């Protein structure tokens, strides 16, 4: 028999986890589908199940000098309307699933599900986001990009919960986001792209780019970003082809029921160009 546990406190949850492995359910919008069964039958869970959506300790958004801290079970819809949440992340969330889903779905669920097409991962990678993994006795903080190790794979141990998402404060002049789905709402991304940039006195002082659904995990390459950091805005347009060539080896999409690799690759390259052109256009505004 599958045992179902609804802990009342985070401590109770972590203590239970220290004794037994549990299938964690947050909003359940990925897990319930993954373990779905034929109609009228209960889900095909392979382990005992723990529901953590109601834990008060895992709800809320706060900030300090350095970062914005999102408690892991805060629903996406709450993030969507919260002033502390970076506008780019809100833009991304607004294009995730449908309103009904967003009232239960969480950022932690999107992270731990570790889909190459997970929408929220794309901006989170841009910001070098960290996650806090807590067990009964311990707590560790690691980079999100280290936490996710492959498609549907993370380095989270069976006795750990993801409790916090820490987004370093980030100074930007602007950002850019494109989710390319099969339709304009409620679609899984065929490819997605987010970028931010910072301009000082016509010099590009920072630029970041991340790609979703083009590889086993989100693609972000600081070395390629560095190629153009420090350049004068007027020189950017000459660098587009070079950037595209640099990213090309990292963009290794697949053929599936939603799209094909040729399209995904071409669009990814187009988005790089569009992002750079966007920066140039924005920078030339009075």
């Amino acid at each position, binding site marked *: 028999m599958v045992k179902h546990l609804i802990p009342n406190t985070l401590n109770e949850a972590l203590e239970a986890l220290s004794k037994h492995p549990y299938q964690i359910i947050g909003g359940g919008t990925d897990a319930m589908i993954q373990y779905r069964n*034929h*109609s*009228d*039958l209960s889900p095909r869970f392979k382990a005992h199940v723990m529901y953590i959506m109601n834990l008060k300790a895992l709800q809320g958004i706060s900030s300090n000098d350095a970062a914005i801290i999102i408690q892991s079970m805060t629903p996406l819809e709450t993030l969507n309307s919260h002033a502390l949440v970076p506008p780019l992340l809100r833009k991304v969330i607004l294009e995730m699933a449908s309103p009904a889903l967003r009232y239960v779905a969480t950022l932690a669920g999107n992270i731990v599900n570790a889909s190459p097409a997970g929408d929220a991962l794309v901006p989170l990678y841009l910001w070098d986001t960290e996650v806090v993994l807590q067990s009964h006795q311990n707590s560790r903080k690691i980079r999100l990009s280290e936490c996710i190790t492959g498609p549907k794979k993370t380095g989270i141990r069976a006795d750990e919960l993801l409790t916090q998402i820490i987004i370093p404060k980030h100074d930007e002049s602007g950002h850019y986001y*494109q989710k*390319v789905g*099969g*339709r*304009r*709402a*409620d*679609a*899984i991304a065929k490819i997605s792209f987010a970028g931010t940039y910072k301009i000082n006195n016509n010099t590009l002082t920072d630029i970041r780019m991340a790609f979703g659904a083009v590889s086993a995990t989100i693609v972000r390459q600081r070395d390629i970003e560095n190629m153009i950091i420090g350049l004068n805005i007027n020189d950017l347009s000459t660098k587009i082809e070079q950037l595209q060539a640099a990213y090309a080896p990292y963009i290794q999409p697949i053929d599936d*029921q*939603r*799209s*094909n690799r*040729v*399209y995904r690759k*071409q*669009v990814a390259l*187009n*988005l790089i*160009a*569009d992002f750079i052109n966007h920066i140039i256009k924005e920078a030339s505004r009075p």
Partner: protein
Amino acid sequence: MHKDISQSIHKLDAHARMQGKAQYVGDIDIKGMLHAITLRSPIAKGIIKAIHYPPLPSGYTIIDYRDIPGKNFVKMIFEDWKIFAEDTVEHIGEPIALIVGEDKRVLYDIHDKIICDIQPLEPLFSYQKSVIDYQFTKGNPDPVFKQAKKIIKETYETGYQEQAYIEPQGFIGYPETAEKVTLIGSVQCLYYVKNAVVSALDTHPDNVRVIQAAVGGAFGGKEEYPSLIACQLAIAIRKTQKPIKLIFEREEDMSVTTKRHPSKTTMEAAIDADNNIVGIRAKVALDGGAYIGLSGVVLSRALIAVTNAYTIKHLAVSGDVFKTNTVPNGAFRGFGAPQMIFAIEMFMHHLAKQLNQDPYSFRMQYLAKQGDQTSTSGLFRDPIIMPKMIQKATEMAQFHDKVKAYKTMPNRGIGMSYFLHGCGFTGSGESTHINAQVKLRKDDHDHVYILVAAVDMGQGAKTTLIKIVSHTLEIPIEQVHFDYPDTDDVPDSGPTVASRTAMIVGGLVNQAALEMKSLWQSKTPLEVIKRYKQPEWIVWDEKTFQGDAYPAYSWGVNIVEVEVSPITYQVNIIGIWSVYDVGKALDETIVLGQADGGTAQGVAYGYLEVMVHEQGQLKQKNMTDYIIPTAVDMAPTQTHLYDNPFALGPYGAKGAGELTLVGGAPAVAMAIEMAIKKPIKKIPATPEYIMELMHDDDH
């Protein structure tokens, strides 16, 4: 009481549906009920060597072809579609057996232990094996093509489309007596189901009763397919003598039920020295899937639509249904017309361009006029008001200004389609195949009951039929009733298909109401029966495709405006404008509802909805992967209706259900074509296809 019938009232089934009170098959439970699940072929083609069943717990039963009292086929047109696979399997998902019992967990456990020993054979997926071929001519095409100055040829392709009704297929049934089986189902055609089950059980018609449950959408998907599972279930009920429910899950439904036929159409035009089209040759190929089912009828309706809303003097038209080892394709709103109308509309547009003519004026020249000969050499008897409709549509959309502007503005396009739709069954089908009968019954409280087999699947039949009776008898709406039909109670008024319900069934109901009015005596029960009588002027030769293919035509114009992203190649629909002639709207809101839904489904067929198979396995099997438009994807629609009453329709009404779908695809495809400046010859015009076109410099 004397108000215009078009004036809308509240849709009479809306409250029950919104409040969750409507009883769908899934909502109905019967004490002691068993469940049935289906064992299916895992491969596309093979010879069944043996099916090894595990020992069954008591109360669990397997039903397969050996249990069929009658012949092993679903009675439709040909004796080809098997109720259960027997010696061979012809497509992935073909039903082999039902597993029946009380606990679904046990059923799936048994299912997973069954070993199918099937010897695989090489499946066929290309257009090679013709199982039906039709051809006809109009005028004298051969000499015209011989003397032509120029012959222009193009080929057009269309893909699958899934009906995507909200409620999957399902039935619940029970033994009424040892002999008699009652089935309650989500169906469009009660008597199709009844006749198929009578044949499968090899029993007297009195021993089969079919009742309609609330139907959560159908779009043609519940025309012939329900007959298959009704036969299976009836056989199981007869054998077990227990109530049983058989209801599909979404993924099962999408993987195994009928789709719109993929097609490939080659069009050739004979052009004279003055750049006029003097003749057209068309050759249509439909992918029928593993069994013919209704594919022949779909083909014939496609062929008849060859010149759409135009008149062309000389025609040579032919087509085939090809058998492939894929899910059988079948009925879908539009029934062959969407494929053909896409081909002819794009062809007319492409001809104009290749002849260096303005597409708008070029196409206008060929528009059909009252008194012209139809594609099958019948007569367009009734007034055709297309010029007025086109004028209105172009004004609403500012079409001409936009065409001019988008010649130089990149990534924007606007497209316009003209179309007609034949209402009712083809030719003499209404009298030879259907012979509809309707009944009106008045009780001693002067309440009137409409007894017909028509199904309200959301399209509004309940409301419009009640309105007709209420208006004609001049009694309040509340005094007229139309309950879910039951074959023990209602005569066979024919299937709920072919845009025939308002015009044909509604027409008969109106005649019955008129007769009832003349015999009306308050507080006295009365019954009136009316039978369909074919107008004498309809002459149709089914073999040669000559004569009047339909008693009447509805007409339409769609304009679609798009923006195509040069970065992502995605299409954004900016606006949709439509003008329709449906004779007379029996309820304006209901027709506008059909218009919005129909154009959404038709436009999406043209650019959005993708379904493909790989080695016979459909790749999109749920609503996440099979993309249909959301409200965000649709643009604001503006629709105008013109009255053009048809003498034989109730209050002048013609068909409206399919018309609104058939023109969407060419309109959006033409708009995309204008935006990317490359010809579109295939739908859906997905971003992946648009990218190929934009990067291909040969065109």
